[in-house]
């Protein structure tokens, strides 16, 4: 699987122009020796684990018990089991909700909004706002999750104190909303920074022209800004989607609970493979997750190609 993920991307980027066959004059053998260390490292650290995962995914390997000592080859049984298990589909559904609200809508829109709001501010105010947002990004996830546990605690949480909602168990009553807001808080800085630099690259002459013909703020945004930063929007959305899809941090806040209500795919795999001990099944689901990632990435490549042709 991994080989097929790396080669098409490489060949798509490789220049089609003809070059001299051997610029450095090393010859194939010696050139091979030069790249061999890199290839060996790639083989050990990328290729081998990937192939190993595929192999594991086709066994009934477990963390303990008889199947740990002598796992049996079960072919595609794990895939069949995962794809017919309602909790897998529930987990996938939760992941989509999580990605949509915390990643695509939350981080992207709020990030853009913040960048838009501070674009004309200068000096220490801008520095302060950017600094605050960046702080959330810089704080290690484990620390941030403890912070949020303290904020949302049922008995002595800060949020309950501020809102006067003593006794509300946010992580139990509104678990998905909680991790969505948590993830927005953690990740918005990236979008804000990316959009800030994108906005500063929009030619001022175009904005001035738009203003002169009497375009409203909304019209400026729609007709001048967005077309100029389309590439950034696309890149940002792809990265945020993939990151949010794969993130494990919400586990630190809710541990997948209560009763699996925040068991997004990464948490589901962890719960299956490590505490659940079903390493084979976990490996199979990991591969399914990898394939979903591939589909997202390919979709993005498609869209960006189509955009460049126009």
């Amino acid at each position, binding site marked *: 699987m991994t080989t097929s993920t790396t080669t098409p991307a490489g060949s798509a980027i490789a220049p089609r122009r003809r070059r001299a066959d051997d610029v450095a004059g090393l010859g194939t053998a010696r050139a091979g020796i030069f790249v061999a260390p890199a290839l060996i490292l790639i083989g050990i650290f990328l290729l081998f684990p990937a192939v190993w995962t595929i*192999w594991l995914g086709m066994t009934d390997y477990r*963390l303990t*018990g008889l199947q740990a000592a002598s*796992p049996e080859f079960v072919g595609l049984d794990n895939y069949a089991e995962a794809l017919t298990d309602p909790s897998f589909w529930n987990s996938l559904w939760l992941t989509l909700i999580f990605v949509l609200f915390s990643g695509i809508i939350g981080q992207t829109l709020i990030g853009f909004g913040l960048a838009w709001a501070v674009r004309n501010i200068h000096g220490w105010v801008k520095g302060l706002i950017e600094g605050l947002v960046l702080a959330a990004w810089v704080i290690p996830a484990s620390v941030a999750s403890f912070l949020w546990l303290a904020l949302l605690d049922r008995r002595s949480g800060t949020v309950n104190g501020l809102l006067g909602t003593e006794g509300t*168990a946010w992580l139990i*009553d509104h678990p998905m909303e909680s991790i969505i807001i948590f993830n927005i808080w953690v990740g918005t800085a990236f979008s804000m920074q990316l959009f800030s630099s994108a906005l500063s690259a929009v030619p001022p002459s175009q904005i001035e022209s738009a203003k002169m013909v009497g375009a409203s703020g909304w019209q400026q945004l729609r007709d001048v800004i967005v077309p100029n930063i389309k590439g950034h929007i696309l890149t940002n959305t792809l990265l945020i989607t993939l990151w949010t899809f794969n993130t494990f941090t919400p586990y630190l806040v809710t*541990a997948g*609970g*209560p009763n699996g209500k925040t068991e997004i795919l990464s948490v589901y795999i962890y719960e299956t493979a490590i505490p659940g001990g079903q390493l084979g099944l976990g490996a199979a689901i990991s591969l399914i997750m990898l394939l979903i990632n591939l589909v997202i990435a390919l979709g993005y490549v498609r869209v960006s190609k189509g955009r460049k042709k126009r």
Partner: protein
Amino acid sequence: MINHGNRRILAALAVATAGALVFAGCSGEAPEASEDTGPVTLTITANSIAGGKNAAEADWIADWVIPEFEAAMEEDGKDVTVEFEPQGVDDENYKTKIALDLQSGEGADIIGMDGIWVGEFAEAGYIKPLAEVGGDAVDAWEGWEQIPEAVQSAVSFDDERYGVPQGADGRVLYFNKDLFEQAGLDADWQPESWEDVLDAARELKQLDGVTPIQLNAGTAMGEATTMQGLLPMLVGTGEQVYEDDKWVGDTDGLNDALDLYKTIYVDEGLGDAVLQQEAAGRDTSFQLFAANQIGILLEGDYFWRSVINPEEGVGTAPMANRDDVVGYTKIPAMEPGSGINGQDFVSMSGGTGRVLNPNSEHPELAWELLAFMNSADAYKARNEGTVAITPRTDVNDEMLAGDPMLTYVSEEVLPITAYRPPLAAYPQVSTALQQATLDVVSGVSVADAASTYADAVKDIVGDDAVSGG
């Protein structure tokens, strides 16, 4: 098979690397001393940590076992260093850690573990029978005579000893006498049936800011739910989780037990259902009990001697007035005489133990250390700070008299207790049971929860090995 092949390759790589490192490190120094005189390093790991979980055990290992054993070895002319690798995490996480350690051929020489993991670890080949690892000295050990068969079986599998048990425990109902008095109840309490317990809880409900009863439920607290919640209730209905080669399925007893959960958490709101779903729910229930906010709590003697122990640095939720305020009483069967063996009262017992790591480089010396940790002197030193029921009858006879609670468990509870089956499938069945309680607590009907559970168990052990519908 893949695992073994892979392990061999890894081992070869590790040996090669280690060899190179040792070679590099030793060049120019004196050659290593011979095998007999050391220097040798042994390691012990357990889920205990100074100032945290099971602090008393951690302190005992650091302050007594290590210096005393090193001194004893020195007298024999051996240079032995013992290191302790403390852990202070949830039992489930600890189990995962040691399983991964053992799987990769690593891990401490002596590993503390719950008796119920022994089956699956043995089947995986992670641990081996004690005598196979430690040599002839194991069977010749004087301690076996002092440890009753039933206690030994807690860390045995397929009639083979895999480790040395650390003690016996029992479960009781703890209650807060102050709260009982405030609610107009008799502080000298011995309920005769589930209904008696519910009646007391109903009275306690009138008090402000008090959760009347907390019966462990849900998956967040793992085995604590099964051991300190569902199983004591199940044996109170006369059924066992594993009986006559069959696992309990959708049976009357299970339905009755789940029904009790429904009464407590859903129908009458006598317990805090949200607490049972919180990630740190068990620790929170300890804190709340210590803060006089929980009336009745089902726990093991661990709760008394460790969690709420007022002695400095022992408990994680110490109660200064523990001896005056906290009452304990036997767990009643559903109705008098309805428990297993026609008993009026029931309990569940588990056992922890310590095993030898088959990957140990010095297995015979590791056994010497393990035997040392289980000597009468060692238990006496261990019990100086906090008394626990030890596996050794000689030590128990001498030491338990000083602690009325543990004497109570030893004399009243252990004779009526039941044990979990030492089978590899148990942990998976246990998880399914936890899910069943969680389902009920979060609003699913008892019938649905029981049938979902039965289906899950059939998936694990096969249709033939499940009793009931």
